[in-house]
């Protein structure tokens, strides 16, 4: 009886879900009339004003008293706040989560299937990475947030790539047109890295344990079909795909700056802005800062797709999420606000306010005018949101179960493997070390 879905029940559920988007939040008998939310503190000046205005508009309409706290990632503040609130079982109603954290706190979050399904119908499908990170045991535990979500694809210097590597990145990824990037492969990337290194403008890719370094390594591994742990949780370190990926990335890493193992997430930005490198892997934040501090560098920057490997063209993707704590006393209001922030008009405003940095995770919203118009040079961000779906957006360490993948990611296992092999450790010894590390992550 419980599992049986009658036609009438199906129609009633669908109608109720659709109505949730259309209907304003009505204060129920349990609502306290207050909502405390955490939003990621945006680095783009003025971007917080837009999100604040959107929330306040909703609050005024629904007569809810909203308190917004903007918290950034500096010193792991966002991470620590979420960890503290989980322990204390009190705090905000809505929390912003970076990449893995929604899945990590799945047990403490309110399922949001009732708002995600209508949102997907309205805004288009979400990619497999969003589903992998936001859906736990078949249930949506968080809503993909536009604020903070990013693709960390290549940002190249047009002039240096043309001059030293003979690659015209604007021709590969023309503004306003589909990519013509068949020749843009990992082999081409390797040759370009060598040429630019020899010319004194090495690619600025880090080999540390922070997010930017790990994301690039993850993309290279995916391009070879290399997984350290598969989707079922089996350790698959000692495979040919992993060997090939490690061999390739070690070759590429020889052309990185010698101090790359010590780089953090600021190092690649500084590398590009100071004019010392021909390519970095980053969202357009480095370009945006260069536009302010080094305009002559900014006008030569072009954000584009990643080079294709034997198993496809992958790009590092880091979605952010908004989740509702299960201890929240105003869950219906929280859901209503998340629906409001996920409307196309709200998303368009958020993208514009961030100068094109923030990415919606919904398929129908990757061709907003901000990306076409931002510059100089005009069209530099056109291919940033992957408008033609010509690359697979993935997160490093996937498709391992998120609880395991998160550890592989945070511990930077792939970059450490690369540095070990780069420093002369034999391949099999590196693999044995990685296998031992990964086995340790399987504990529940």
């Amino acid at each position, binding site marked *: 009886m419980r599992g049986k879905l009658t036609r009438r029940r199906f129609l009633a559920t669908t109608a109720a879900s659709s109505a949730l988007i259309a209907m304003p939040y009505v204060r129920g008998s349990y609502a306290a009339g207050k909502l405390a939310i955490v939003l990621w503190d945006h680095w783009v000046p003025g971007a917080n004003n837009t999100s604040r205005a959107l929330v306040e508009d909703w609050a005024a309409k629904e007569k809810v008293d909203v308190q917004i706290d903007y918290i950034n990632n500096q010193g*792991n503040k966002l*991470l*620590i706040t979420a*960890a503290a609130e989980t322990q204390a079982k009190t705090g905000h109603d809505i929390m912003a989560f970076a990449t*893995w*954290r929604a899945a*990590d706190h799945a*047990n403490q979050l309110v399922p949001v299937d009732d708002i995600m399904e209508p949102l997907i119908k309205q805004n288009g499908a979400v990619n497999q990475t969003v589903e992998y990170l936001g859906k736990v045991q078949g249930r949506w535990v968080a809503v993909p947030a536009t604020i903070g979500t990013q693709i960390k694809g290549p940002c190249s210097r047009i002039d240096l790539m043309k001059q030293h590597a003979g690659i015209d990145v604007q021709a590969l990824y023309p503004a306003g047109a589909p990519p013509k990037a068949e020749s843009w492969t990992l082999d081409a990337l390797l040759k370009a890295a060598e040429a630019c290194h020899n010319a004194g403008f090495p690619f600025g890719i880090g*080999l*540390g*344990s*922070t997010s930017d370094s790990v994301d690039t390594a993850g993309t290279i591994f995916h391009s070879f079909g290399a997984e350290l742990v598969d989707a079922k949780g089996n350790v698959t370190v000692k495979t040919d795909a992993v060997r090939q990926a490690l061999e390739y990335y070690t070759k590429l890493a020889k052309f990185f*700056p*010698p*101090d*790359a*193992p*010590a*780089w*953090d997430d600021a*190092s690649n930005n*500084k*590398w590009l802005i*100071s004019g*010392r490198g021909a390519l970095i892997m980053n969202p357009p934040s480095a370009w945006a800062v260069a536009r302010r501090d080094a305009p002559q560098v900014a006008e030569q920057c072009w954000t584009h797709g990643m080079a294709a490997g034997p198993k496809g063209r992958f790009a590092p993707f880091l979605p952010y999420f908004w989740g509702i704590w299960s201890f929240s006393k105003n869950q219906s209001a929280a859901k209503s606000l998340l629906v409001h922030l996920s409307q196309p008009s709200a998303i368009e405003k958020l993208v514009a306010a961030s100068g094109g940095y923030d990415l919606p995770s919904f398929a129908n919203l990757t061709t907003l005018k901000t990306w076409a118009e931002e510059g100089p040079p005009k069209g530099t961000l056109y291919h940033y949101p992957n408008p033609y779906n010509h690359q697979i957006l993935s997160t490093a360490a996937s498709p391992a179960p998120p*609880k395991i993948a*998160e*550890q592989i990611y*945070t*511990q930077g296992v792939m970059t*450490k493997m690369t*540095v*070990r092999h780069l420093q002369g450790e034999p391949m099999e010894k590196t693999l044995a*070390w990685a296998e*031992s*590390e990964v086995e*340790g992550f399987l*504990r*529940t």
Partner: protein
Amino acid sequence: MADAVMGPVTGARSARARRFGLRNAMRRKSMIAFTMTLPLILLIALFVVYPALYSLNLATLNRSMERFVGLGNFLFLFNRETFWMVVKQSCIFALTAVLFKAIFGFVVAHFVHNIPTKGQRKWRGMLLVPWVIPPAMSCLAWLWLFDPSYSAFNWIFEKFGIGPIPWTGDAMWARFSVILVNVWIGAPFFMIMYLAALKSVPEQLYEAAAVDGANFWQRTWYVTLPMMRNIIAITALFSLIVTFANFDIVRILTAGGPIDLTHVFATWAFRVGIEVGDIPLGASVSLFMVPILTIAAIFILRDIHRRGNEA
């Protein structure tokens, strides 16, 4: 008769009242001392004892903190290569840093002690500066000096055709860098403690040694060092505890890298517990410091106690 019966009872009651009355209790020195230290005791209970007991509890839970696993987390750690690397690095970091802090502190204390009294206060103040600056702030300055790509040191060395040195990119240099900064921050504490000890050594002992024809090294070895032994031991113990538990220097300068080769207990516990989200394992890593420091404390304090009894 009734009076005779009631007399001793009343006397006993009044005696008890005298013994236990609040006013009398407050007059006792021990009670006053206890009352005055009570706020501190409560603070310690709240911010030290409770978190310590809570972390003990956490260390016995599984990753999702839903199941009691006893010593399972510790047994798991004992089988991890990285954990033993962290143990080794913590020992190298703490012992080397304390040794150099003691040496520099001792030498500088002698220099300052020999400066004429008039200008001594100025030097003492200046030499304490690294110790009184908040470490997070001074570490950021050091981070800029050691920056992988834009190191100020390398910029200077380049003028002399030296380098560039990968201060935080190479394991050996990274270890050197974090120890150097720890010594820079901690040496003034040793200096001020040793200076106080030097000032308490009776001048007559040096005069007697001089009469006996002792040179500088002999005076230092046979007079200064024995007179300072207790202060040296206490300072070393105190510093060892603080250095073993150090977090900020390593976290800011290297974040444990490259390839985990500068991680110490606190930074590794933070990585595992907070960044990776395995709070019970992080608690277990941080608790592992307790037995190591307890053993060190027992040995050092026993030595001090023994010498005290001999004296």
